């Protein structure tokens, strides 16, 4: 009897989770559709938001789930962007799926390398190492101008039609749909990974690494794996940016982008993936609207928003709402 109820509640539970993820996917798709019809002349911005959302999701994996503090995560994004861009501009790999694959692999390798370096330290020294990484990567890309175009940016990226069917158009429609499909696929895979045994292990490491070791699990090995996965996701975002804008600039490998990604994650809330998406959309939309309305003081206004969130909703926009409903749900029980 006990066994029966266990397995029954197991399937019920599973269905509830799958339903929630299906709703998540539908919400992303609905948002994407609304964006498409509301801002048909602004698809380039929406595609950029999608690419950055991949970067922030990727940051959530190491910061939100594993508790690794980093201000150098754009290195993984930039590696994907330059990887895909160089493949197209120098090696004639112009199939968008192949470019994406190159971006993902470049990002994963950059993730492995950053992971090996950053995970040598903890706390503040860790943060400093991550900053060193992004500055080194930025400088390396700047110096290797034969490959990267240096400060002029890497041009001459001409992706083919997707599956030979959909040409990248002037209005950015193909790029937008390409990006949204990529984001949804990444989101579904990541939702699965974070609730797998591996994902539990990562959450455990953030909460108490000593306990994880006492269970016989390898803390360092697990974190390195997560860093590589995170790199693959950020690399996909970078590749999307290269494919959609057809240039790669040094800004994709900058400290500013790394810091902004962290701000977006904190704004939305860490450790849920949903928060990463909401933080990215809110921040970038806000930035766009406010900078158009008031080009002189928009940074001040963004700063005020951030202070308000950190003070009044320290778990971030999604995290605070989720916590509120969880509390209400428990009272109702």
């Amino acid at each position, binding site marked *: 009897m*006990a*066994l029966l109820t*266990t*397995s029954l509640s*197991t399937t019920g*539970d*599973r269905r509830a989770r799958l339903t929630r993820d299906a709703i998540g996917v539908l919400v992303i798709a609905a948002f994407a559709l609304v964006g498409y019809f509301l801002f048909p002349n602004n698809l380039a911005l929406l595609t950029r938001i999608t690419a950055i959302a991949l970067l922030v999701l990727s940051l959530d994996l190491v910061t939100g789930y594993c508790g690794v503090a980093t201000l150098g995560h754009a290195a993984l994004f930039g590696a994907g962007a330059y990887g895909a861009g160089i493949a197209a501009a120098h090696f004639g790999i112009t199939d968008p799926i192949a470019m994406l694959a190159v971006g993902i692999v470049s990002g994963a390798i950059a993730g492995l390398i950053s992971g090996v370096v950053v995970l040598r330290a903890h706390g503040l020294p860790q943060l400093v190492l991550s900053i060193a990484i992004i500055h080194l990567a930025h400088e390396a890309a700047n110096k290797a101008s034969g490959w990267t175009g240096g400060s002029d940016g890497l041009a001459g990226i001409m992706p083919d039609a997707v599956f030979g069917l959909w040409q990248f158009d002037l209005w950015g429609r193909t790029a937008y749909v390409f990006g949204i499909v990529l984001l949804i696929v990444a989101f579904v895979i990541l939702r*699965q*990974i974070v*609730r*797998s*045994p*591996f*994902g*539990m*292990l990562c*959450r*455990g490491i953030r*909460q*108490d690494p*000593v*306990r994880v*070791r*006492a*269970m*016989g*699990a*390898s*803390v360092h090995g*697990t974190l390195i*794996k997560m860093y590589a996965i995170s790199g693959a996701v950020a690399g996909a975002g970078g590749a999307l940016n290269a494919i959609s804008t057809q240039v790669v600039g040094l800004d994709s490998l900058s400290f500013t982008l790394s810091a902004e990604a962290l701000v977006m994650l904190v704004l939305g809330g860490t450790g849920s993936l949903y928060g990463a998406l909401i933080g990215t959309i809110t921040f970038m939309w806000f930035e766009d609207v406010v900078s158009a309305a008031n080009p002189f003081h928009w940074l001040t206004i963004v700063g005020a928003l951030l202070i308000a969130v950190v003070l009044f909703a320290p778990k971030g926009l999604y995290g605070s709402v989720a916590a509120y409903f969880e509390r209400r749900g428990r009272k109702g029980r």
Partner: protein
Amino acid sequence: MSAIFDVRNLRKMFGGLAVTNDVSLSMAPGDRVALIGPNGAGKTTFVNLVTGNILPNSGTVTLGGEDVTRLGPTQRVRRGLVRSFQVTRLFSEMTPEEHVSLAILQREGRSGKMFASHRAMPGVMDEAHALLAKLGIAQLAGHRVSEIAYGQQRLLELALALALKPKVLLLDEPAAGVPQSDTARIEQAIADLPADLAVLMIEHDMDLVFRFAKRVIVLAAGEIIFDGSPDAVTKDARVRQAYLGSYADARSVA
């Protein structure tokens, strides 16, 4: 009798203080050993040393004939040397079900799986729930650890160690902080352990010690001052001295 767990001449200095001073100890499969001693005697430090949580200044630790002195804590756990913590160490945002499932999956070498869910593994779930039921916390399986009482967290701490199915089990005061009404569950869970498992339990409650142990080791100021039967320990002059001495110290401080 061949030893499964053998510690030779272990020594650890903190500053100028020898917290573990030339400690040697050997256990065979099936042993039930109680490690007792006044507060600050170095009992927890001994566990930290042999499990690899801190490094000794000198001495060796052998597990099943293999020298593990240079191995990290993870490797020792994988070879069957498992401990529990005196002050509970749990994942505050995770549920008991998740804790125990993770430990079971780790034992089976499946904790790195990315495209699976423990909830979809009936074998793991049933074992986890059976273990939680045995310790009387099955009804809390789905609650966050941060929401459950400390005494129940102590029971989960023990459940985690048991879920790893160790060969050598070191329990650091498993009953400390557990309400009197629940200590029987802990005793029962320990009594039900496989007969060939070697268990060392640190405990202050002498009733528990006498019911559990076939052998008692007394540690005082980092040194083993007694190793023998439970009957003999109360009559031993050095042991009385160590305990009385510590009480005398306590009084002079107060």
